[in-house]
């Protein structure tokens, strides 16, 4: 469990372009959840994101409040990342008309330790707050979400 008021323990950096792509995806799929992967490099302070890759939401049964990325799609995304010399830095999804805070479902289904989980609140079709949480801990049993600061780098392309 993370304290919503806790000081961010790490930093997620990305260009303005990538940041806006993530938020635009949430607006496009509203009232359904969008999802995708973030590719980048690890730094001492956190992930440096280089690109955001859109993925399909396979939870068509409950797309307004659930998301899931097909593992095969992720296998293919990872192959592509590897060729570019990048790694999977994390994932993003939207919360249609729901705060940009992780839910119990998000926590239970989060398994990529050390990766960043970005959530955008989409209020009435418009992207509102975007937050990031790093899945900290060393095992499934001691995992926890920690608040992470998002640093949007203006003036840097892609």
């Amino acid at each position, binding site marked *: 469990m993370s304290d919503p008021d806790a000081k961010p323990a790490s930093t997620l950096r990305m260009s303005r372009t990538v940041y806006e792509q993530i938020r635009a995806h949430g607006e496009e799929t509203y009232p359904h*959840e969008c*999802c995708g*992967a973030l590719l980048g490099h690890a730094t001492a302070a956190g992930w440096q994101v280089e690109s955001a890759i859109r993925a399909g939401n396979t*939870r068509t049964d*409950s797309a307004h*409040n*659930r*998301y*899931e*990325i097909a*593992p*095969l799609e*992720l*296998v293919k995304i*990872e192959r592509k990342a*590897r060729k570019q010399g990048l*790694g*999977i*830095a994390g*994932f993003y*999804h939207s*919360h*249609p008309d*729901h705060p940009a805070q*992780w*839910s119990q*479902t*998000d926590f239970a*289904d*989060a*398994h*990529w*330790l*050390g*990766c960043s*989980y970005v959530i955008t609140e989409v209020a009435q079709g418009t992207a509102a707050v975007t937050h990031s949480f790093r*899945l900290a801990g060393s*095992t*499934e049993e001691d995992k926890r979400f920690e608040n992470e600061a998002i640093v949007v780098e203006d003036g840097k392309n892609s």
Partner: protein
Amino acid sequence: MTIFIPTPLRPYAAGKDAVEADATTVAGALEALTLDYPDLRKHLFTGEGKVRAFVNLYLNDEDVRYLPAKEATGVTASDTLSIIPSIAGGD
């Protein structure tokens, strides 16, 4: 065969993103992998030795769960095995 290691498990595989394993089956490849990198074992398997429910294994483009012989499926040196933890959630 080549086993691709996902980002969260690389710290337990000496930082490698891919590992070569000499094996004839998927199960044998996982055994070889965890013999070389024992710290991976608790991340991949339950206490009973079963692959954890959220860990997806893809032999090339096939989900190992849906292969007729599952983890006993034969592999060759040119095959790839991707370990992909599941991605899901929601509000």
